[in-house]
């Protein structure tokens, strides 16, 4: 296990100086700006179907009145409420609910997350919906202890 961990880190993190010039590059647009570490929520209610709009409205209301106020309690990225919305959109309501309860159970389990999930940022773990749709082809496994840059 440790060997694999080291190998993964090596392949992902090893900087070889000559390699930066293996592709021709142009002048870079370096900005002085600092990036904000905080997750920005998408509050738009427009959805593809009526049910999507309905669910999104409920979720936005939940975010506004409750979730934004009780702080950042979900260790995962996407957060549990976002996970729920995405799960329903990708599959259907019953399956989405099952995925959500499974996710909630994993949320309760505070032990050993470091060695199970890859990292997304400083304090969150990467746990996307496509791993749990039961569609094997959608699964893209990422090992723990690696850092995932969100797009």
């Amino acid at each position: 296990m440790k060997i694999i961990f080291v190998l993964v880190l090596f392949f992902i993190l090893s900087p070889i100086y000559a390699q930066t010039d293996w592709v021709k590059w142009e002048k870079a647009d370096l900005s002085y700006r600092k990036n904000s570490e905080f997750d920005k929520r998408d509050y738009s209610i427009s959805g593809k179907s009526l049910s999507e709009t309905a669910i999104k409205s409920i979720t936005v209301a939940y975010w506004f009145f409750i979730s934004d106020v009780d702080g950042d309690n979900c260790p995962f990225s996407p957060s549990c409420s976002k996970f729920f919305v995405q799960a329903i959109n990708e599959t259907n309501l019953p399956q989405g609910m099952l995925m959500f309860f499974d996710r909630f159970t994993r949320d309760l389990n505070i032990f050993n997350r470091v060695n199970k999930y890859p990292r997304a940022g400083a304090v969150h773990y990467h746990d996307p919906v496509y791993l749990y749709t039961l569609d094997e082809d959608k699964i893209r496994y990422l090992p723990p202890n690696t850092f995932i840059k969100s797009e």
Partner: protein
Amino acid sequence: MTFVSKINSTKRIAVSKFREVLLIIFMLMNIYIFPQANLHVQYDYAGKLFCEEKYFDAITEFKRLQFFDSLNQYSFLSNKLIGMSYKQGGKLNEAINYFSKAELNSPNDDSLFTVKLEIIKTNLLRRTIYRAFDLLNELSGDARFNSKKDQIIYWKGWAYIFNDEWKKAADEFDKLEGEPELKKLCENVSNAQYSPKLAKVLSYILPGAGQFYTGNYVSGILSFSWVALWTYISIEAILADRIFDGVMVADFLAFRFYNGNLQNAEKFAVEHNIEASNWMLDYLQNNYRGPKP
């Protein structure tokens, strides 16, 4: 042959031998000067590419120059310009690598100082600010650069800017005679920023107060309401002897919203500060005309 004519012919042989030697010296000089003159042309060519912002190709030509420069005449300049090219291309680690090589070959203290400054500036761009501070401290302690104290202070100010310490930056620029603009700008940012610690303390004492301090009134009202509501319910439950219910409500709800309130107060202050910093950083990058990283 008479004695005189023998001497004359010996003289002639000596003179022609002398000419031969001169010829050889001239030829040797050609071989010596010729390739080095070529290098000057190569240096100009590489420099032209650099000015045209064709950095990848400029690096190629400077490397060619280095390869054929057996006397290392152009070592300092080529390494420095390769470093500048990498810096313009955003390849900051390589840039520092080549600047360090230039350091080893600097012909005099002024050049050495320029290159050391470039390393500091690249560290700022790379956000390895602590390294920049270390290098600046080294410079101010170095007796060779006593005449350049002003420049060192100027760049220390910039290091504070990149480290988000605008008040300290303003203080540095204050020490200089010619930077009232930068001092004013830094002071403006410093004054516009909130203290995350203060926000957290305010919210600690009164839920919602920190959010009011940072201008997030709606969030402050919501925080206050929720905490008040659940605290009231849990106390009421405990007083009515439904201890279990009371403790449950207090734990899962009242504390949760209270912690969220603390988190938000700090988060709003920090977010606001980042926005203020970024605004000023953009302004400096696009509009300020003085030396920049």
